[in-house]
């Protein structure tokens, strides 16, 4: 826990922002005011934040269908994101992308992705760009356990390895892809052992603990920056909600979710650690919570008030010029 106070505050605030963002959506989706397919990241916050706190805006990430956490952690504007999810004209993507396509080139966020396994090839390209530019940037791809069975993901790992790219493959193993358990569908002993088969140095780590994530990533990302080629991590994690809203989740063990919420809530774990170690006080935490809550409220407020897209804009933004 060699982190400065501001770093701890920042980490907590980021995790909490993601959580509250998702909790809001969870409530709001029921009302029908959030259109489309929305996948919530709640439960996995320590991974996104633990990874991205090691990155700068000059670094790249690619994300998944479950992308809100990665976006917020990488620095996408929360208000712009909320507007986007409400499908508003001044959303981060002008209401054209929605939950599965939030992106912001300005902060190196190359997009959530509706295609499982869509991100890693793009991150490989960004890593190649970084290598060519020679300024020490890295590219991180996030992917779920399910994504590790996609052919283009394998191809990307091989390409990153042979070209020695500054590419970090992060696998968030939350045990399920939709209704399917990872043990059924992944033939290898683990994702990590499979990735090792590509000659890529791979670590398995606890994704419930921000500090472990942060430490593991610090070292790996530093190595990637230095030109040592790609590396990978498999994080154990959990999602607090169903794959989609209304998912009865009866593919999970009886008390699995209750147990995860009680014992594997990365935000509780973080809070307990920092308060027990006397690094942040309950008061500090409360203050941060309030900041987060008012940001989320503000974002919802603005999102609801924001203008709807103009139907005519359906044909803009297809090309730079045509």
């Amino acid at each position, binding site marked *: 826990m060699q982190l400065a106070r501001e770093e701890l505050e920042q980490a907590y605030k980021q995790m909490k922002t993601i959580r509250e963002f998702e909790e809001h959506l969870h409530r709001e989706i029921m009302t029908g005011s959030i*259109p*489309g*397919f929305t996948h919530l990241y709640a439960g996995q916050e320590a991974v996104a934040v633990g990874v991205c706190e090691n990155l700068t805006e000059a670094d790249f990430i690619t994300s998944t269908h479950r992308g809100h956490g990665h976006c917020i952690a990488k620095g996408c504007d929360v208000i712009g994101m909320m507007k986007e999810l409400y*499908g*508003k*004209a001044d959303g981060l*993507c002008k*209401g*054209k*992308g*929605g*939950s*599965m*396509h939030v992106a912001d080139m300005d902060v190196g966020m190359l997009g959530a*992705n*509706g*295609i*499982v*396994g869509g991100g890693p090839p793009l991150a490989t390209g960004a890593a190649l760009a970084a290598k060519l530019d020679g300024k020490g940037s890295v590219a991180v791809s996030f992917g779920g356990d*399910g*994504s590790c*069975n*996609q*052919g*283009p993901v394998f191809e990307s790992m091989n390409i990153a390895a042979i070209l020695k790219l500054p590419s970090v493959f992060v696998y968030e193993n939350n045990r399920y*892809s*939709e*209704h*399917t*358990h990872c*043990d*059924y*569908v*992944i033939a290898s002993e683990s994702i990590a052992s499979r990735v090792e088969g590509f000659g890529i140095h791979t670590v398995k780590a606890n994704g419930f603990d921000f500090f472990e994530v942060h430490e593991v990533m610090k070292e790996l990302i530093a190595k990637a920056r230095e030109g040592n080629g790609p590396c990978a991590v498999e994080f154990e994690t959990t999602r607090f909600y169903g794959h989609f809203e209304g998912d*009865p989740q*009866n*593919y*999970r*063990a*009886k008390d*699995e979710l209750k147990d995860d919420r009680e014992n594997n809530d990365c935000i509780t774990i973080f809070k307990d650690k920092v308060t027990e170690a006397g690094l942040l006080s309950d008061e500090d935490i409360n203050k941060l919570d309030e900041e987060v809550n008012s940001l989320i409220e503000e974002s919802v407020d603005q999102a609801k008030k924001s203008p*709807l*897209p*103009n*139907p*005519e*804009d*359906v*044909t803009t933004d*297809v090309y730079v010029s045509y």
Partner: protein
Amino acid sequence: MTEKTYREALTDALFLEMRRDENVFVMGEDVVGGTGSPHAEPGFVGGVFGVTGGLHEEFGLDRCIDMPISEAGIAGTAAGAALAGKRPVAEIMFCDFMGLCLDQLMNQAAKFRYMFGGKATCPMVLRTTYGAGMNAASQHSQSLHPLVTAIPGLKVAMPSTPADAKGLLSTAIRDDDPVIFFEHKTLYTITGDVPDGEHLVPFGKARIVSEGDDCTLVATGRMVSFCENAAQALADDGVTCDIIDPRTTSPLDEDAILDSVEKTGRLVVVDETPPRCSFASDIAALAAGEVFSSLKAPIKQITGPHSPVPFAKELENEFVPSPTKIRDAVAEVVNFK
């Protein structure tokens, strides 16, 4: 006849065909849903749209196979199994994902018979969903039937009613050629009378949805009801239309379309894809080549614009052809001189 949803009609066909022929099996992501889970009995989902629900209870996990997220693997495994004598019904959750398995469809399944000099058959069905209308944005809302209609060796079915859903799927499963089967996401919950027991709708035989004198409307899937809607409004103004649903875009019932255009002299083709190299342009070009002398007006295509499908409702609604746009187009060609 029983009133059923489009979804139920599809499930019905699967049950009947799997009972009839033990070579038929289903495979895809979560088609059972939870196979191999250490925690639960498998079989909770039956496909994210519920079409394969309950099958594994009757036919077991050997014939209802949950697959990894490996679209190329799914399509390729299906093609190989079909080549080896089985009749797989594979599911690709959204047709948008065909970008990941086009090689297996276009270069393998579609071409085996030809490349191998007529000595192979590949009786696979690839079921998939398509279409806009759920705010699912650019990667989950496409209508990619033109892509596969263009490919010689494939057949392409697109039911627009529960009865056709059952009848076309049954035919697809018994067909000896590879069939891409498009189910419109927004149609799963529509209801209609569906024949009980065996029900086969032949490929290449259009459904004449309604008959009229002034204009021919050609549409598939969700667009058929949009055309009906437009036609009703037009009828109030004394304009009547033939509405033709080809049911299968390949093979195509050219005669039904051309006969109608010869009668009406006018053609409006409606489809929810972008305009270029589309099924709409295919039909328009067909008529422009074959029944030119009968044409009284320009052939109109009502399609989506040349853009991806957007997320927000207001934009998506603008993307999809509306009954109003269809009506205006018909009015325009009817008034053309």
